[in-house]
């Protein structure tokens, strides 16, 4: 007979692992990735590949040489995921050296300085995007048009739906909004002359990803539903008050809302740990997004809304506790 092994209970474990969750999110992003290749061609391939490779490289290098960790964490899939999400936030004509700076910020500053996976306070991909937006505002706000499959740095750029909405508010003129694609086009990503960030073009692909993640129990419904719901209601109220504000369906289908609500805000590390907390978080993000979009300097408010609420997550975790067993009054 061999040895007897001892430990404290439980002696069984479920099938869930960190890798399964991270790679599951990556699989959920595949439809959106394929769609972005279809719409943006070469540029999209170059940007995505650079971003992913850079993120993985920086995490490996920092983990090995600066933090001197025993076990390198690049295989758990989180670096690849950050790379993908960062790429989805960028225009497909961004030069490689800028992408590298973004990746360095995302992994080096936002993730590894805090201690690696599990310890970061802010969403790394969004920190990378925000840093690039502030450092290279010109390159980060000119978006290539769809359909230019062979172009990369030389792609022609155009107005995004969000910039049209911003213009309408500035002019106070609802007729400007007629230039927006129809809701169906926004859903499936059919913009003949449209432009945008790579991951934001096709809402349908992102929704397929959401369905996959819910099915595999990688995330719960609370955050995406509360964000999209809040934006819909708030934007709807504004639209009713003044038609210069776009209608709520267009609002939820444009820009980074879908990407942010489904993939960025639901990041495990930076979102609250209880269902109640997650709903509070989602509602606040939705509210802030609409405020920044309509009255802020930038046309896109999602990234900053999420980053602001990331800072509130520890506070939410501290004060919002789950429903304890035994608090329910007897009700036979």
């Amino acid at each position, binding site marked *: 007979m061999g040895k007897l092994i001892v430990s404290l209970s439980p002696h*069984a474990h479920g099938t869930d692992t960190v890798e399964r969750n991270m790679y599951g999110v990556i699989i959920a992003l595949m439809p959106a990735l394929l769609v972005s290749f279809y719409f943006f061609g070469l540029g999209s391939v170059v940007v995505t590949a650079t971003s992913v490779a850079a993120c993985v490289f920086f995490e490996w290098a920092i983990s090995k040489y600066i933090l001197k960790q025993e076990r390198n964490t690049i295989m758990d899939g989180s670096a690849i995921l950050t790379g993908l999400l960062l790429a989805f936030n960028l225009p497909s004509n961004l030069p490689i050296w800028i992408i590298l700076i973004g990746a360095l910020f995302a992994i080096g500053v936002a993730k590894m300085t805090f201690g690696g996976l599990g310890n970061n306070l802010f969403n790394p991909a969004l920190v990378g995007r925000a840093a690039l937006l502030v450092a290279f505002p010109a390159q980060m706000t000119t978006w290539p048009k769809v359909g230019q499959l062979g172009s990369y740095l030389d792609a022609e750029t155009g107005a995004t739906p969000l910039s049209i909405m911003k213009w309408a508010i500035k002019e106070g003129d609802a007729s400007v909004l007629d230039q927006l694609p129809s809701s169906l086009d926004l859903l499936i990503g059919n913009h003949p002359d449209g432009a945008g960030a790579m991951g934001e073009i096709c809402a349908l692909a992102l929704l397929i990803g959401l369905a996959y993640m819910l099915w595999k129990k990688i995330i719960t419904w609370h955050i995406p539903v509360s964000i999209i719901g809040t934006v819909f209601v708030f934007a709807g109220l504004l639209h009713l008050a003044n038609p210069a504000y776009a209608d709520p369906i267009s609002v939820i289908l444009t820009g980074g809302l879908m990407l942010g609500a489904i993939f960025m805000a639901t990041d495990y590390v930076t979102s609250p740990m209880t269902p109640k907390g997650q709903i509070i978080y989602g509602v606040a993000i939705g509210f802030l997004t609409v405020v920044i979009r309509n009255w802020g300097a930038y046309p896109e408010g999602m990234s900053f809304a999420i980053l602001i609420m990331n800072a509130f997550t520890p506070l939410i975790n501290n004060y919002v*506790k789950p429903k*304890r067993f035994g608090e*329910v009054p007897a009700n036979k």
Partner: protein
Amino acid sequence: MNIRTFRIGGVHPEENKLTHEAVTQVAALPKQAIFPLGQHIGAPAKPVVQKGDKVKVGTMIAEAGGFVSAPIFSSVSGTVFKIDTAIDATGYRKPVIIINVEGDEWEESIDRSDKLETVEAHPELTPEEIINRVKNAGVVGMGGACFPTFIKLTPPPTAKAECVIINAVECEPYITADFRLMMEKADEILIGLELLMKAAKVTTGYIGIETNKMPAIELLTEKCAKKFNGSAYTVEVVPLKQRYPQGGEKQLVDAVIRRQVPAPPAIPVNVGAIVQNVGTAYAVYEAVMKNKPLFERYTTVTGKKIKTPGNFLVRMGTPMKDLIDACGGMPEGDNKLLAGGPMMGKALTSIEVPICKGTNSVTVISDDEARRKEPQPCIRCAKCVGACPMGLEPYLLAKISEIQNWERAEQEEIVSCIECGSCQFTCPAHRPLLDNIRQGKSTVMGIIRSRAAAKK
């Protein structure tokens, strides 16, 4: 069929009920029976025999060591070999009584017939008499907790019992002892339930069974209807959703009567329910009606690599080695030997540990499943929060226990933890959450106790 369940948390481990169909066999008598003196919650029993004494099956060999305690009876006939120390299920050497087995002679006072004794036929059984017989027979909770039953049947003055709930859930993987007991001794169990209801002075009873035991649900529903329809008692067989830890006392009460027991020191009787394991109900029947003290029980011996797993009616004191050998022996390679199931069982360092009052299963886990994976940093996925049936935050409690911040641990209600292991089971990063929480819980309970003692 309306399937109820508890409202917060829970996980669904693989069932592995390998011995579901195995009819119970009577285990062979051991050559030497070992009786630990601490087989129950409370003070250890005190020996009343000495080396060289002759005992029969059913002779008392140790008396209760205090109020919260229970006597121990010999399950074999023979000579007391010595009173020594041996490794028991706690992993430490504890005082035991060792008896060399000779023959199988029973005490004459025990009724060994199969005749079903009904409560109607015994009007002399008042609630006090029932509780007294239960106490003298050494009946303790057979689900594993081993709390003396007679104390549970006499609630404190601040609480009023409204119903008796029989815990036949058996939510742990692998274990089928309670299921076989229900299939083979259903009538006796129902009479045991009636005795419990009479002793607790209630007229409502429930039997909670998980839906993976449909034959038992059907059998008991049919027999309950026949027995209790038109009587003073209302008994309902409640099918429950398969979910771990459905068999936890508090979760069971929540599922069956939709009341949640408040945080400790509250106990189920504070919301009106007295919960008893189905094996305890059977032991109560035998103790009260057959004058048979508690010395044998139904135990499952199982494991994926065990050659012929089975269910046994085994005399307490039998070393586990005997049962494992009867099932084909310990598998090759490194194994984990558990007293109990994989979620809450105790890993043992020796296969000679004896079967005790609370040993409902001997589970052998082999190879890869026996070892833990390397823990990774917490990724804050909050799956542990979703799994915790008590509505706690395991990631937080584990961290607080690790940094030894006992005040914060008490604030976060660490004492409510029932140590079910759902959090550690779920954690994708394989973090040893329950190891840390257990540490914190025992330290905080010690602090609370010393604070209460200092106040007096």
